[in-house]
């Protein structure tokens, strides 16, 4: 039997158990529940950070236990690396089962699962025992315990294994059964994302395995810090697209269906993903604008390419808005703006509660896009670099659209995989709007105080925000307090979410477990083969990376004097401390 629209064979009646075994449900469910347990700590630390930065807490440690920068390391690593990556893997696993209608390869999945778990536990051990107070960017020559580095490598390698050994082989098998069909959009977006993930892991793996781990183990005495930093941002910028693209997959495939419409343009969506493939990586120098040692002309080239990578996001904004308009008009929306009223902002009907996560995320992302263009704008970056403006920005991007869509999809998958109904749906629908208001205030206040000069990654309760300190900055106070207010509102939203999350997890089964996803058809769909063929885009990607990174890496290599390792609590090299006792 063929589906007339997609040309793809409707799955021959594979039995449900064969498609989604108990073990594969366990894999996906645990890849969601485990990171949520950590995220509770991550969000609690976020709350403590806004209190400290507002001068409400004035201590080096929270309650004599976790130190501020130790907490900030945990906050960054858990929220931005562990939580995001886990949900991306879980979502992609479920998506492949749902779209390709083929079961997961359990051997591969168990290896990936175990590596991610062991990696997380090792890094958690290092961070929780104060052996890795290096923040989630781990710039040398500050050094952490080796378990932090080994844990990180195990974790990320575990996360990419399913792509190569499960999804690609499963897709090939699907293609053999459906030779005339194009690669489904959801698969294309996921494959672009994991191709990027593979490419960006190369530089950071080199940094960790050849520079940081040997230094941490004492096998070498010195490190080239500029080279390490350049390799880190070679990874660090595309990382933000690794977070974002799964959200875009949801916006293109699920959101139009949820509002009762269609994806406005399938080729535009494919074009956007392919543009991400070529432009996401060669832009890392926009994190290094203000440092010496790297040519300004290459910083300018990276600035240009950063503007190019904004293009697929503009395309996405247009396509998503057009799809929403189409859906709303199908539901009877009229007029130039009247259709806005027909969208299911507060609906709890069926899967429509998910809409609140996407729409609140998109609104936050609007601000994230604008502040992101400011950050990227070369010389304008000198006004905001490393101020709290930057952390305001990324709480509307990774903390905004990405986190909200991941919270939404996690709740959705928990319910589907357990065969339960989403519990406390009203709380689940209220949550994204609290998060939206909270992080809007948070970002606005952090932007203002950042432009006034407030630094990021700083325990301000001990200095700038402490009225008893000679470093006190009275002009910043009101903005620090507004940041705190925004943070508290967002945390309230999170608490409501967790009620619904655990309620759903422990609710009784009423349906057959599945991984079924609402996936929209396309309104405009004129196939262009080049948009489903990876090869030309991969070649363009490699060429651009070579042009953008050869010279900066040579410059970084030229730094001949290197630095010994330091611990965060001693102003002398680690070796001297150990030797001098």
């Amino acid at each position, binding site marked *: 039997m063929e589906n007339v629209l997609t040309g793809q064979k409707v799955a021959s009646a594979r039995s449900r158990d064969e498609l989604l075994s108990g073990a594969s449900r366990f894999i996906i469910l645990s890849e969601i529940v485990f990171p949520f347990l950590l995220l509770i700590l991550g969000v609690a630390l976020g709350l403590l950070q806004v209190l400290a930065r507002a001068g409400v807490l004035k201590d*080096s440690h929270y309650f004599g236990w976790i130190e501020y*920068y130790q907490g*900030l390391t945990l906050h960054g690593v858990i929220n931005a690396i562990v939580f995001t990556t886990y949900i991306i893997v879980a979502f992609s696993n479920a998506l492949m089962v749902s779209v390709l209608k083929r079961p997961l390869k359990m051997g591969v999945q168990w290896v990936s699962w175990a590596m991610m778990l062991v990696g997380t536990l090792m890094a958690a051990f290092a961070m929780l025992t104060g052996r890795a107070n290096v923040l989630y960017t781990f*710039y040398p*020559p*500050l050094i952490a315990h080796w378990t932090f580095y080994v844990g990180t490598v195990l974790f990320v390698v575990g996360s990419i294994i399913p792509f190569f050994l499960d999804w690609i082989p499963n897709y090939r098998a699907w293609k053999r059964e459906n030779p005339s069909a194009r690669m489904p959009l959801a698969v294309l977006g996921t494959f672009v994302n994991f191709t990027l993930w593979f490419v960006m892991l190369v530089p950071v793996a080199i940094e960790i395995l050849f520079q940081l781990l040997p230094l941490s183990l004492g096998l070498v005495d010195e490190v080239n*810090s*500029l080279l390490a*930093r350049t390799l880190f941002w070679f990874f660090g910028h595309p990382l933000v697209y690794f977070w974002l693209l799964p959200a875009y997959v949801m916006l293109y495939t699920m959101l139009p269906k949820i509002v009762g419409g269609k994806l406005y*343009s399938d*080729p*535009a969506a494919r*074009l956007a993903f392919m543009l991400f493939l070529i432009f996401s990586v060669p832009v890392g120098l926009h994190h*290094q604008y*203000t*440092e*010496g*040692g*790297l*040519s*300004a002309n290459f910083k*300018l080239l990276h*600035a240009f390419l950063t*503007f*190019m990578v*904004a*293009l697929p996001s*503009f*395309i996405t904004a*247009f396509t998503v808005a*057009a799809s929403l308009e189409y859906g709303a008009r199908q539901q009877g929306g009229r007029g130039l703006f009247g259709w806005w009223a027909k969208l299911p902002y507060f609906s709890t009907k069926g899967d429509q509660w998910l809409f609140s996560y996407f729409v609140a995320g998109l609104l936050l992302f609007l601000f994230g896009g604008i502040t992101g*263009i400011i950050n990227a*704008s*070369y*010389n*304008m*970056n*000198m*006004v905001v*670099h*490393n*101020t709290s403006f930057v952390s305001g920005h990324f709480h509307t991007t990774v903390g905004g659209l990405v986190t909200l869509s991941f919270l939404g999809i996690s709740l959705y998958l928990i319910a589907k995989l357990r065969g339960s109904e989403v519990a406390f749906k009203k709380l689940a629908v209220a949550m994204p709007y609290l998060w939206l208001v909270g992080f809007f205030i948070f970002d606005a206040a952090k932007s203002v105080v950042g432009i006034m*000069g407030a*630094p990021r*990654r*700083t*325990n301000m309760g*001990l*200095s700038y925000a402490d009225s008893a300190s000679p*470093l006190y900055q009275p002009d910043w106070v009101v903005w620090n307090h507004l940041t705190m207010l925004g943070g508290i509102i967002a945390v309230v939203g999170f608490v409501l979410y967790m009620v619904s999350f655990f309620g759903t997890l422990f609710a009784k089964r009423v349906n057959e477990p599945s991984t079924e996803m609402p996936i929209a058809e396309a309104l405009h769909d004129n196939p262009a083969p080049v*948009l489903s063929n990876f090869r030309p885009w991969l070649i363009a990607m490699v060429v651009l990376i070579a042009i953008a990174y050869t010279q900066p890496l040579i*410059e970084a290599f030229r*730094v001949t*004097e*290197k630095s010994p390792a*330091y611990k*965060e*609590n001693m*102003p002398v*090299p680690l070796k001297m401390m150990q030797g001098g006792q």
Partner: protein
Amino acid sequence: MVDRFEKRAIVVALTLVLSFFVLLVYAAKGLGADLPTCLPDAKPFKQGELIQLGDKRYQLNAVAKMWNFEPNEIRIPAGSTVDIYLVSTDVMHGFHVNNTLVNLMAIPNVVNYTRVKFDKPGTYDVICHEYCGVFHQNMVGKIIVE
């Protein structure tokens, strides 16, 4: 390939980002608001000092280290132009002179450079804005313009 509304949206977006880019190139090259660059011949130094080069002309060799700057406080007359050279002698630090465009990273063994003119008298805070250890939040220098 893509429909005509979609094409229009792409053209508008492209025009927008390209005009942003043209403007920032103009600001950098025309108005002189450019970024630090690679100075292959600059030797990293270990000692911080303020050197007077002429009337209202100074060179500041700034050293960032756990957890202060060297020199940590300098005084210069209003209208002075200062060539700032910056290096770290231990871990990464930041060097952000509030209310100016001076915003630099201090990286071990890498010399950073910028030039700035101080017209308005006052006390400028120099804030370390990169995490550098347990006393990072106390790492502040001062530039006093008289």
